[in-house]
Every structure is written in structure tokens, then in C-alpha cells.
């Protein structure tokens, strides 16, 4: 994070879904500032709401979901108040673009990939005909696709998984966005390809001066790319800070648990830690700290009142009662303390 200019600011965001007649609260009052040029990672388990959270920046929530309250401020617009498709069309692609999780299904199987990238180029760069095609070929080259002239006329099934993800990234880049959201960009890929794709995303971020938001449950990815980390649990960000702060000085019991369950190279013979229990049912109203029922060291107050943010440094904020001056001293688990510096 080189400067402190906010590019997108989320205030008290609440997102709800209607499911089989019941109402589910997927995002429960999230506050988050995203700064220009940074690379932010949002981590959390499946179902913690990280994907829903970022989809709401682009108006891509499923039809049964809606923003119940709160603001999403982007360039003097409150995206949370957008109601028509036309308003969103000014944001989607042009301002905020997205790379999807599964490149095997994200491309139209019946359209050449050249044409699919060209759609972005024509729409957002105003180029036509041969100019547009040349631009597509340049972008394909940028994302590391060799023989782009030949590849232009090929279909998705003629590409491998990693190559398809490059095409998906090309489509996003071709929109010339300010913010690029990468929704689990490497989850569906081979381990060897993952590193290549992450490197590509890092290079593109520099080249096109993008602000990137990674959504992932893979802490390895986070360590690799993120300047800042936001840990999400049950629809709320419970800890946010610079990468070093969250990795080396985590404060929330959930973050401890998450880091403990990360396999460490070089430590043999110890069983891998796993978090007991399941995330709370979001159909019910959550009282207190959402993680308390799974936290063996939870305090009484954790079950009664939702903790506010406690500020550790100007960049590091955590929602846990453990940081209250009246709280008893609870030490983080050993495995966290022993987490070797420099390994990440």
C-alpha cells in the first residue's frame, strides 16, 4: 500500500437472501476501505460470504439476494443504491472487472475466444474492426498466450485449464478496469499452474496499475500476493491488517485457528489442526461473536454481545473481546508463535 487514497469504501453493508421462504443474512454489517493500487486478500471458509461481498460491488448478486442496508462508495457513487441495469453497466467491466473461479465453464463454448475478448475491447476501449482485433492479440500476448493470431480463432475446448484462465483474465483486462476482483482464481487449477497464474496477475497489476482484490481460502495464495488481508467469518470481517500483521501478530481466535490449520513445511509428526464445528447457520440471528461456539476459549461476553473493532495499529483492526482491557490474557496457540518468519 503506497498511498492512503481510498478507491472503494464499504460502510455497514448488510446483504440478505431469500431462500425457500426464509431470509438469510449473508453479510452482516461489513466495513472495509480499499485503497488505490493495493492488493487485498479476503480469506475465509466456504460460505463465509466473501464471494457475495465482492459480487455486490458489481451488482452481480443472484436474483434472490439484495443489499439490505449500508453503502458502497466508489468515485462519489453509492453502488449500494444502484437499482437499474443501466447504472451497473457503467461500473461493470469499465470500473470493476472480475476473474472467475472455474475457467472450464466461464467461457462460451460456441464462440471463438478472440471474439469473446473482442467484446470487452469494443465495449470498453471503443475500438472496432481491425484495430479491435489487433488490440485483442496484444492482450492475449500480455496474458502469456503464445501464437495469439492462431489462438484468436480457436474455441475454449482447444485450451487447457491454465490457458483458459489466461483467456478469462484477458477478458477482464481488456475492459481496462480500475479494480480487478479475482474470485478464487487458482482454486480450479493444477498446483504447478497456480503459481504461474498468480505471477501473471501480479505482473498485470503492475503493468495496468490495478487495484486487486483476491478472494480465496488458500492462505498460500494470500502470502504470495496480498499487501493486506481481511479475514471473513460468517459474513463479517473479523480481522483486517497488513499481511505481516495478520500472519505474524494475529489477534482473533478464528485467525489463530485458520493459521494453525495451514500445513507447515518442516514440521513433521504433528497432526494437522482442524477447526471443530461448523460455521453458524445464517438463517438465525447471530448473537455476540459468531465464532464463539467453535472457540474453546470463548469468554462469556462472546456469547452476549458482538465485539467492536479494536485497533492495534492504524492498519490492524480486530473484532474480539480478548483485546478489551478487562479481558483475561489468552495466549495464541503455540503453533502460531512458532510460525517461522520468512517462510511465507
Amino acid at each position: 500500500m503506497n498511498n492512503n487514497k481510498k478507491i472503494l469504501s464499504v460502510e455497514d453493508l448488510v446483504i440478505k437472501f431469500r431462500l425457500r421462504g426464509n431470509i438469510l443474512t449473508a453479510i452482516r454489517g461489513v466495513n472495509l476501505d480499499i485503497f488505490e493500487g493495493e492488493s487485498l486478500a479476503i480469506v475465509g471458509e466456504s460460505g463465509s460470504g466473501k464471494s457475495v461481498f465482492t459480487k455486490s460491488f458489481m451488482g452481480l448478486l443472484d436474483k434472490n439476494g439484495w443489499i439490505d442496508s449500508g453503502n458502497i462508495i466508489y468515485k462519489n457513487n453509492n453502488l449500494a443504491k444502484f437499482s437499474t441495469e443501466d447504472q451497473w453497466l457503467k461500473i461493470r467491466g469499465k470500473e470493476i472487472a472480475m476473474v472467475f473461479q472455474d475457467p472450464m465453464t466461464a467461457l462460451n463454448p460456441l464462440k471463438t475466444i478472440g471474439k469473446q475478448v473482442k467484446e470487452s475491447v469494443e465495449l470498453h476501449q471503443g475500438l472496432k474492426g481491425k484495430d479491435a482485433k489487433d488490440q485483442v492479440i496484444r492482450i492475449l500476448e500480455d496474458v502469456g498466450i503464445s501464437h495469439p493470431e492462431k489462438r484468436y480463432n480457436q474455441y475454449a475446448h482447444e485450451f487447457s485449464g491454465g490457458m483458459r484462465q489466461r483467456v478469462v483474465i484477458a477478458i477482464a483486462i481488456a475492459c481496462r478496469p480500475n479494480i480487478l476482483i479475482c474470485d478464487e482464481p487458482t482454486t480450479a487449477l493444477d498446483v504447478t499452474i497456480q503459481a504461474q497464474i498468480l505471477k501473471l496477475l501480479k505482473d498485470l497489476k503492475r503493468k495496468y496499475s490495478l487495484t486487486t482484490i483476491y478472494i480465496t481460502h488458500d492462505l498460500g495464495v494470500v502470502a504470495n500476493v496480498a499487501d493486506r488481508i481481511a479475514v471473513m467469518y460468517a459474513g463479517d470481517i473479523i480481522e483486517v491488517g497488513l499481511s505481516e500483521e495478520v500472519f505474524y501478530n494475529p489477534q482473533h481466535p478464528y485467525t489463530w485457528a485458520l493459521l494453525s490449520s495451514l500445513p507447515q513445511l518442516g514440521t513433521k509428526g504433528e497432526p494437522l489442526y482442524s477447526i471443530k464445528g461448523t460455521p453458524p447457520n445464517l438463517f438465525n440471528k447471530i448473537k455476540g461473536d459468531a465464532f464463539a461456539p467453535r472457540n474453546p476459549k470463548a469468554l462469556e461476553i462472546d456469547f452476549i454481545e458482538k465485539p467492536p473493532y479494536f485497533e492495534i495499529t492504524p492498519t490492524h483492526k480486530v473484532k474480539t473481546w480478548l483485546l478489551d482491557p478487562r479481558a483475561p490474557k489468552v495466549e495464541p496457540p503455540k503453533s502460531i508463535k512458532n510460525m517461522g518468519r520468512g517462510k511465507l
Partner: protein
Amino acid sequence: MLSYILKRLIQSIFTLIIIITIVFALMRLMPEEGYFGDGYEKLDHFQREAILESMGLRDPLHKQLLDFYKQLLKGDLGKSIIYRPKVDISIILKDKIPYSLQFGLGAMGLSLAVGLPLGILMALNNKGLWDKLGTAYIVIINAVPAAIYYLFLQVYVTGILKIPMLYSEYNPISWILPTVSMSLGGMASYAMWMRRYMVDEMNKDYVKLARAKGLNNNKIMVHHVLRNAFVPMAQYLPSAILFTIAGSIYIESLYSIPGMGGLLVTAIQRQDNTLVQALVLIYSSIGIIGLFLGDIFMAILDPRIKLS
């Protein structure tokens, strides 16, 4: 692409040869009365044998089969025996097919022209009023036996509009109702499948990506969803077009249209062996040709097919 077509063509020809052989074999198992017409009772055993021999039916089987193929290659389907004695079957068909074709193609055009847009409208309006009305129509058409609404249309609509109840070659107004009646079923099924395939496509990830890159809804529908939804239907269209020559038994008898509908049933009832043989051959060939064309059509629309 060319090798794919060639491969499918060879497969089709092979299937056709098998079917012709099976039809030939089955016909030899039919009672031999069918070769004599009304005169069967009056002939004695030797006369019958003499006639069968003159028709080549006492030759060894492999020779019969070979002759049968030769005849077919010349385009000779044989002569009718009982239905219209001693008349070339190709002439019988030539008289009848144009009627069935005219109504069949008309009805098909109409059901496509109404059914596809209806399906699209239903998909776009998922769970809205149009979707519900369309579903109601589809359910009614499928649940009520066709005979009932065919009859209903014939009796009441002709009465209300004061148009003739029966088909007349020289009065185009009398062509309308049979065409419309015949298209109702097709309309329902085209609408149903189009809606279903559209909804399938609309929920796919690539549509979400298209939306995320900023395409507006119309462009997504026209450039992405519509074509992809149409591909699975494309396979059946050639068969459907070809089979219009078979006509509709019910419509043709209701409006007394001298078409192909019911010809096969009549031929079987009256044991006109050669006519049955010719018709079964024609219908099964149409089936095979239709599938072949459908596969080619689909391969043109879907680039993935060439590989598999």
C-alpha cells in the same frame, strides 16, 4: 469437418443396408395371401405357386435379396397389389405426398414461428405472467388428447367463421384450419424445449462472465444465450422436416385430405405386402437421413463436435 461428414455418411449407409435387409426378411415372414389380392380364394395350390414363382418369391433367398437391392437402386419400389392393384407404388406416393408435405411444412413453419418466440419469451420472463400462460398452454396441449381439440376446432371454428368444414383444393381458406390444428402440438413442444434450453444456458457461468464484463442483457441474450440454446434443438429439425411427408392420420381424415396419413395403417390392414414394404423402407430411410442431417447441422453450429 469433411472427414466427420464422411464418417457419418458411411455409418448411415451401413445402417440403411441393415434396415433394408431386416425389412426384407420380415416381409418374407408375412402371410402369402398378401401377394394375391382378392383372388386368393379362387386359386388352387398350383396356381398360387405359379404366381409366386413368377413374382420371384420362390427363388433362393439370397437371389431375392439381391434382386430387391437392384430394384431399389433403380428407384423401383414395386407395384401395389391390393390397395391399387398393379399400380406403381411410386405413382401412388407421388399423388399423395404433396398434400401431406404442404400441410406438414406449413404446420411446422407455423409452430416454429410461434413456438420458438414463445419459448424465448417464457425464458426471459421466467416465473412471470408470460411464463405461466405459456406453461398452461403446454400442459393443456399435452394433457388433452389431440383428437378432442382437433374436433373442437373443426366443429366450432368453421361454424363461427363460416368457412368450409372439409378441405378443398381450390379454396385456400379451407387450408387454414388443418394447418393450424396440426401446428398446435409442435408449438407447445418447441416452446417447452426452447424455454428449457434457454434457462439452462442463462444459468451457466459464461453468462455471468459476460455480464461481469459489462455486456447488456440484450447482447448477452442475442450473442450468447440464443444460439447456444438452439444447438440442442438443431439436431431434431431435419428429421421433423422430413417426416412431414408422413402426414397426420387424424387431421387428414378429419378434413378428408388425400395425403399420406394413414396409408401405412391401411396397407397393413389390407395386407398389401409390397406397399407395406415400400412405406416401412421410406420411413426408416427418412429417419436415418434425418439423423444424419441433424448431426451435420449440429456440427456446423457446435465446434466441439468435430473432436468427439
